[in-house]
């Protein structure tokens, strides 16, 4: 098999002391930001993006993908022990996980979640290894029309279909699209919306936008909430972190079900792993109801196993969509795309041909990262929980310093810092009004692709709009999009959400407010 020999080559590239160190650093940082509420892997990558100027591409990508997976390993720790999910992706795990911890089974809950995350990552990465090259081959026939459809699909999916409120999603998308327009037009050389400021001719740097939106916006949001959130208590995790045979037999099917729910979601621009984790939680709950003695509500191990596996499976297959199609399906994936672009590489069908070595090394690193993360998380989860004792004031002060460092170091330009302050303020206003931030990043990164492929498609066809829907792939994508919109409309016209979903939403607010 072609893939296996390429992958073996990838392992050969990664198994050097230096690269193994980057795997370890990535896994470490990822777990740390995952454990801490309010910090996500997207913010961690954004803060480290300026480092790409001093690192070689493989090292940076290895480290960032370790952070990407690690964030999903660590996020359940705080949820299980403190009932405050580290990220929105861990909310579904928290329901049953915290109840398990309250019932004295904290080590088992942590182990179930770590193994679940591991299984999800490994299964999804294996699928990527076998199917991504095929997907990339298919995508080599893509012309501007297909790319425009793909970008439009991502825009609509992330802003309306997945978002709580389509209007708010679209508002975020509009801001992102506008930021992407600033700078010199690639095809004519016209300066656009630069207002005679030379620093803007190259456009607004993706580093500035992501750091401002994710880090500065978050710090301001936390400041606004300071002294308003209630206290929480940490349940100590004592005893063996191993699962008994019976527990393992109950968790295994849930892990596999969770992983299979998660995989397809990685390819859809659904804004990350929130949707599949909840879907998996609901599935496990339905299955539990058929038992003689339903356990959900009292700390069911399946309720931890399913969502964790689903979350990491989504992250794994999202990597496949990113590498093969150049389509980022979550904020972190969008930042990984930006990282590739920083090095002059364009994820998508040609990446496997042009930068094959790096791609396979990256995939090999993903397997290693999953193993390292399992080792870091299985026995040491209680130690990670100690991170939660770090004073919030120092944590966010440190984030502010690193945010400004990253932005200033990219261009040594005061204009970038001014933009950072302004965009941070905008992100603060958006968060206060429940406007999602992920569409901003997706729009900034895919905006230029959408614009130039539309203009190319028009130029190639002599301004015939029919060219946009002239191939089976474009027709398929637009049909899928129409179905998604129809489903959204249907969902909104239905009677209000059941109490459970409302509770979940409130939980999410608590989580994101911290």
């Amino acid at each position, binding site marked *: 098999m072609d893939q296996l020999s390429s992958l073996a080559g990838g392992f050969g590239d990664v198994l050097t002391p230096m690269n193994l160190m980057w795997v370890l650093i990535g896994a470490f940082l990822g777990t740390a930001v995952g454990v801490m509420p309010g910090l996500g892997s997207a913010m961690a990558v954004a803060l480290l993006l300026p480092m790409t100027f001093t690192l070689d591409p493989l090292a940076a990508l290895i480290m960032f993908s370790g952070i990407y997976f690690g964030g999903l390993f660590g996020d359940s720790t705080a949820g299980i022990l403190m009932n405050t999910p580290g990220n929105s992706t861990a909310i579904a795990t928290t329901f049953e996980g915290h109840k398990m911890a309250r019932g004295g089974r904290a080590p088992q809950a942590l182990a179930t979640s770590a193994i679940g995350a591991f299984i999800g990552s490994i299964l999804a990465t294996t699928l990527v290894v076998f199917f991504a090259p095929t997907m990339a081959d298919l995508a080599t026939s893509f012309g501007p029309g297909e790319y425009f459809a793909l970008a439009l699909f991502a825009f609509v999916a992330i802003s309306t279909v997945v978002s709580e409120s389509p209007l*708010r999603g679209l508002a975020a998308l509009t801001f992102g699209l506008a930021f992407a327009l600033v700078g010199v037009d690639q095809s004519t050389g016209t300066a656009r919306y630069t207002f005679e400021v030379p620093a803007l001719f190259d456009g607004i740097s993706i580093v500035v936008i992501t750091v401002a939106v994710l880090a500065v916006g978050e710090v301001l949001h936390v400041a606004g909430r300071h002294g308003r959130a209630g206290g929480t208590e940490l349940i100590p995790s004592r005893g063996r972190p191993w699962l008994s045979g019976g527990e393992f037999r109950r968790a295994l099917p849930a892990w596999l079900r969770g992983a299979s729910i998660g995989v397809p979601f990685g390819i859809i621009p659904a804004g990350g792993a929130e949707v599949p984790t909840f879907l998996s939680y609901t599935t496990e709950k339905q299955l539990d109801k058929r038992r003689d003695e339903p356990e959900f509500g009292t700390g069911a191990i399946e309720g931890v196993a399913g969502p964790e596996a689903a979350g990491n499976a989504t992250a794994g297959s999202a990597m496949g969509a990113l590498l093969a199609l150049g389509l980022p399906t979550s904020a972190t994936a969008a930042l990984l795309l930006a990282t590739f672009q920083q090095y002059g590489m364009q994820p998508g069908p040609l990446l496997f041909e042009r930068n094959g070595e790096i791609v396979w090394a990256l995939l090999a690193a993903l397997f290693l990262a999953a193993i390292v993360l399992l080792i870091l998380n299985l026995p040491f989860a209680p130690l990670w929980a100690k991170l939660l004792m770090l004073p919030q004031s120092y944590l966010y002060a440190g984030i502010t310093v690193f945010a400004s460092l990253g932005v200033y170091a990219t261009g040594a330009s005061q204009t970038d810092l001014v933009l950072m302050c302004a965009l941070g303020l905008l992100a603060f206003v958006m968060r206060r009004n429940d406007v999602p931030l992920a569409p901003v990043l997706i729009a900034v990164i895919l905006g230029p692709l959408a614009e130039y492929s539309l203009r190319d498609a028009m130029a190639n066809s002599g301004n015939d709009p029919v060219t946009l829907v002239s191939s089976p792939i474009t027709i398929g994508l637009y049909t899928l999009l129409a179905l998604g919109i129809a489903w959204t409309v249907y969902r909104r016209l239905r009677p209000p959400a059941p109490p459970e979903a409302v509770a979940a939403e409130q939980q999410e607010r608590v989580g994101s407010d911290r």
Partner: protein
Amino acid sequence: MSAPTAAGEGTRRTTPIAGRGEIVVAGLLLVLAGVLVHGNLTMDVVGDGGLLGPQGAGWLVAVLAVLVALGLVRSALAKPAPAREAAAAVSADTNWRAVLTVFGGLLAFTALIETVGWLIMATVMFATVATGLGNRNLLRNVTVGFILASVVQITFSGMLGLALPSGLLGRG
């Protein structure tokens, strides 16, 4: 820290904006549309860009911004009273002093980084943000900030070759 939630009870209903934060977002979108339209009208177009040209995408985004802004205003006006009250309660319960302190730290850093230099400004910003977030031990905040700023200066300037302005300390 600032006034408790209950104190906001009387003032909450006075402005028509209260509990309708969407209007702020809508306003920002309209400003954005205005900037795009102004940019398009004053743009010095070079060469032939085809049907859409360099301005086409700008017009599309401007129209989108106006439509979304109108939608947001409509949904804000149609918001039922209980939802409005809940939203107003949340926004009244904001620690503005902390927000302004943190933002002030950022602005000071932005304005003075090149004249005063990294070491001093990063320390000042760290201490400002930590203090703004409720840590009242000023001396310790400054110390921790200074250590962090120094470590960053040494690793980034010394080892990775990234230029950070030395400012006042460099001239002395």
